[in-house]
C-alpha cells in the first residue's frame, strides 16, 4: 500500500506538470517508418544524406528500409496485404498511385499542402499532373525524370554529325548516316521490357497527340486503331532498316547504356537517370555525352515530354502521421535537399526554388526542354492501369523480337488489353 508523505506529494506535483508540458514535444517526435526504392549505391548514399538533414532539423527519427527497385513493387504489395505499410513510402505518380488511392491505402495530404504552402513550392504543371487523385492530393513529387535521346558525343562527332535532328526525317537521316559509317545508331535494352515503352510513347504522342494517347491509356481507344498501327509502323521502319542494335531483348537498360558509353552504339532513348549512371562511371556531361529531344513528327501535334515522377506518399494505417507529414513537407520544400538530391541523382526537381544552375550542363538543357513542352506525360507503364501495362510491356518485347509480326501482335494486344481493362 502506498502511503502519502510530503516528499511524495512534492515529487508528484513536480513530475505531473513536467509530463503534461512534455507531451506535445513527444507527440512532435518519435519514429517515422519509411520504405523507398532509391537504392542504387550512389542514390542510397545521397538519399540517406537528405534523410539525415530532416532528422537534424526535427525531433523525428527515420526508420529507413530501402528496397531494390523491382523488388519494391512486390514488397509494398505484400506489406499492404499484411496491413503493415510504413508511415511513408516512395511511389510512382500516375496509374500506380491511382491504384493505391482507389484501394484506400493512402492518406490525403490536402491539409499539409495548404498549411505548408506547397502551392508556392511545387511547379504547377507537375503538381497538376502528379499529385491529385480523385479530387484530393496524395503525393509530393520528390523528383521527376525526362526521357530523351542520350548520345555519345564522340561517336556522333566521328560520324561528322554536328546538328542534332529536330524532325523525323532529320532523325532518319542521322540514323542512315551513322549506319553508313558502320555505327549502330540505336541501343535498346528491353530485357526488362519497360525501356522499350519510351519509343511507343513518343511515336504515339508525336503522331496521334496526347488526347488520343490518354484515350488509349484509359481504355476508350483500342490497340488496333489506325493511330496505334501508324506509330508501330514507324517503329517497325526503324527496326527493318537495322537501326537498332541486335538482341535488344537480351540487354538491360544498363547494358544498352554501356554500349553507348563504349561507342558500340550511338544513342539510346532513356530517362534522365542515365545521367546519374554515366556520371557514376566517370563520364563528363556535355563532353562525353549529351542529349536531344525526341524529334517532332507531325505538324500541329502538341510537343510532349515523357517521364516518371517519383513521389512520396503517406499510408492510411501509419502510426506517426504528424511525422510523416513533416517528412514529406521537408523533403519537398527544402531547396537544399531538393538541389542536393536531384543534382546527384540525375533527376529534376519540381521545387520552383531550386536554382537550375544546380544541375550539370545536360540537365540544365533538359530542364529548359521540359519547361517549354506543351504536355508532360507519364511513361506508358505509369499511365495505364497495371494489368493493362503488363499486356503492353509484353507487346513491346514481342515486337522487338520479331517486328514483322506487328499486325498479329496488335490484334492480340487489342483483345488482351480490352480484357485487362475489365479486371
Amino acid at each position, binding site marked *: 500500500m502506498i502511503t502519502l508523505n510530503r516528499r511524495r506529494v512534492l515529487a508528484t506535483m513536480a513530475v505531473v506538470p513536467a509530463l503534461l508540458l512534455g507531451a506535445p514535444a513527444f507527440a512532435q517526435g518519435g519514429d517515422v517508418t519509411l520504405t523507398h526504392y532509391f537504392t542504387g549505391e550512389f542514390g542510397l548514399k545521397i538519399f540517406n544524406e537528405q534523410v539525415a538533414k530532416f532528422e537534424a532539423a526535427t525531433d523525428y527519427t527515420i526508420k529507413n528500409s530501402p528496397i531494390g527497385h523491382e523488388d519494391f*513493387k512486390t514488397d509494398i*504489395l505484400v506489406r499492404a496485404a499484411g496491413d503493415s505499410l510504413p508511415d511513408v513510402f516512395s511511389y510512382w505518380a500516375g496509374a500506380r498511385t491511382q491504384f493505391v488511392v482507389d484501394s484506400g*491505402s493512402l492518406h490525403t495530404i490536402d491539409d499539409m499542402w495548404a498549411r505548408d504552402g506547397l502551392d508556392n513550392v511545387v511547379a504547377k504543371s507537375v503538381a497538376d499532373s502528379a499529385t491529385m487523385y480523385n479530387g484530393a492530393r496524395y503525393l509530393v513529387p520528390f523528383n521527376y525524370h525526362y526521357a530523351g535521346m542520350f548520345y555519345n558525343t564522340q561517336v556522333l562527332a566521328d560520324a561528322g554529325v554536328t546538328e542534332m535532328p529536330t524532325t523525323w526525317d532529320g532523325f532518319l537521316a542521322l540514323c542512315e548516316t551513322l549506319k553508313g559509317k558502320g555505327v549502330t545508331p540505336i541501343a535498346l535494352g528491353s530485357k*526488362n521490357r519497360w525501356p522499350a515503352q519510351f519509343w511507343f510513347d513518343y511515336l504515339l504522342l508525336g503522331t496521334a497527340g496526347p488526347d488520343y494517347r490518354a484515350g488509349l491509356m484509359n481504355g476508350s481507344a483500342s490497340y488496333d486503331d489506325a493511330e496505334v498501327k501508324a506509330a508501330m509502323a514507324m517503329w517497325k521502319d526503324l527496326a527493318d532498316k537495322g537501326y537498332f542494335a541486335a*538482341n535488344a531483348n*537480351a540487354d538491360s537498360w544498363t547494358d544498352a547504356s554501356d554500349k553507348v558509353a563504349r561507342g558500340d552504339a550511338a544513342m539510346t532513348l532513356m530517362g534522365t537517370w542515365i545521367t546519374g549512371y554515366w556520371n557514376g562511371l566517370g563520364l563528363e556531361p556535355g563532353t562525353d555525352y549529351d542529349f536531344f529531344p525526341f524529334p517532332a513528327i507531325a505538324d500541329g501535334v502538341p510537343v510532349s515530354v515523357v517521364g516518371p515522377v517519383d513521389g512520396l506518399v503517406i499510408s492510411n494505417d501509419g502510426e506517426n502521421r504528424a511525422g510523416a507529414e513533416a517528412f514529406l513537407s521537408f523533403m519537398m520544400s527544402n531547396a537544399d535537399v531538393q538541389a542536393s538530391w536531384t543534382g546527384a541523382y540525375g533527376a529534376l526537381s519540381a521545387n520552383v526554388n531550386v536554382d537550375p544552375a544546380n544541375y550539370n550542363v545536360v540537365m540544365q538543357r533538359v530542364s529548359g526542354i521540359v519547361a517549354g513542352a506543351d504536355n508532360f506525360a507519364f511513361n506508358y507503364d505509369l499511365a495505364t492501369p497495371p*494489368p493493362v501495362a503488363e499486356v503492353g510491356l*509484353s507487346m513491346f518485347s514481342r515486337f522487338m*523480337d520479331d517486328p514483322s509480326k506487328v499486325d498479329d501482335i496488335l490484334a492480340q494486344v487489342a483483345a488482351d488489353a480490352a480484357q485487362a481493362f475489365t479486371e
Partner: protein
Amino acid sequence: MERENRLWRVILLALPVAVFAAFVVWPLASSFYYSFTDWNGFNPDYDFVGFDNFLKIHTDKLFLNATINTAFWIVAAIVVPTALGLGLALLIDSRIPGGPVFKSIFYLPICLSAVVVGQIWVWIYQPDWGLLNTVVEAVSGENFNYAWLAKPDSALWSVILAWSWQQTGLSMVIFLAGLTTIPEELLEVCEIEGAKAFQRIRLVVIPLLTPATVVVIALNVINSLKGFDILYTMTGGGPFNSSDTLAMHMYNESFKKYLMGYGSAISVVLFLIALTIIRLYFRQLRKVDELHG
C-alpha cells in the same frame, strides 16, 4: 511418469507445430480463401466471386502456356539431372583417374544458391561476350551472337540446362552411395559369365539402384516444383511469357497485375498438381519398399 512424458512430448511438439501452422497451414488456407475473392492485394475491401477465378483459368491463354511449360520443366528437371547424375556416378565409380576430384567439382554447384547459379548462366548465355557464344565462335570461326535467354524458342530450355547443371551433382552423390551397396561379387560373376559392361549396367546395376533412383527422383520432383528463383533470375518468365511456369504466372498475376484473388486461384491449382505428383510418388515408394524390403 507417463503423464510427465506425454506433457513433454506435447511441449516439444508445440513449437514446430506452431511454426508449421503459421508458415504453411495458414498461408495455404488463406490462398484457398482469397481464391474465391476479387481481392487486389491493396484494398481491404473485396467481394466473393464464387468460382469465377477458377472459371477464368479455363479461358486464360497464359495459364495454358504456363501449364505446358511447367510440364516440360518438371519432366526435364527430373529426367536430365537423373540421367546425367547416373552417368557421372557410373563413370566415377569405375575408378577413373581423379575420380574424387571430379566428384567434388560436380557436386559444387548444389552448394550455390539458385540465384547465383542463374546469374552465372546469364553471363554464360550473354550473346555478345558470353562463354557459350564465344566457344561457338571459336569452333565455327564465324560471328555468333544468338540470344539464348531472349528468344522464345530457347529461353526455357536454356534455364533447364542451367538448372540441370546445378542439380546433377546431388543426383550423382546419391547414386554413388547406392552403388556402394551393390556387391562386388555379383558384378564379378556377371563378368565371368560374359556379360558386357552395358549389359551389367542395364540388367544388374540399374535394377539394384532402384532405392537410390526413387530418392533421386523424389528430390528432383520436389526441387523442380520449387524451381521459381532460377527462372525469376534468368528470364523472369520471358521473353513474353515463353518461359512462364505456373509459379511464375501466379507471381505475375498477383504482384504485377495486382490480381491477388486470381493469383490465389492459380496457386490452389498448383498446389493440387503438386499434391497429385507427391501422392503418386508415395504410392510408388510403397511399391518399392514392398519389393526391396
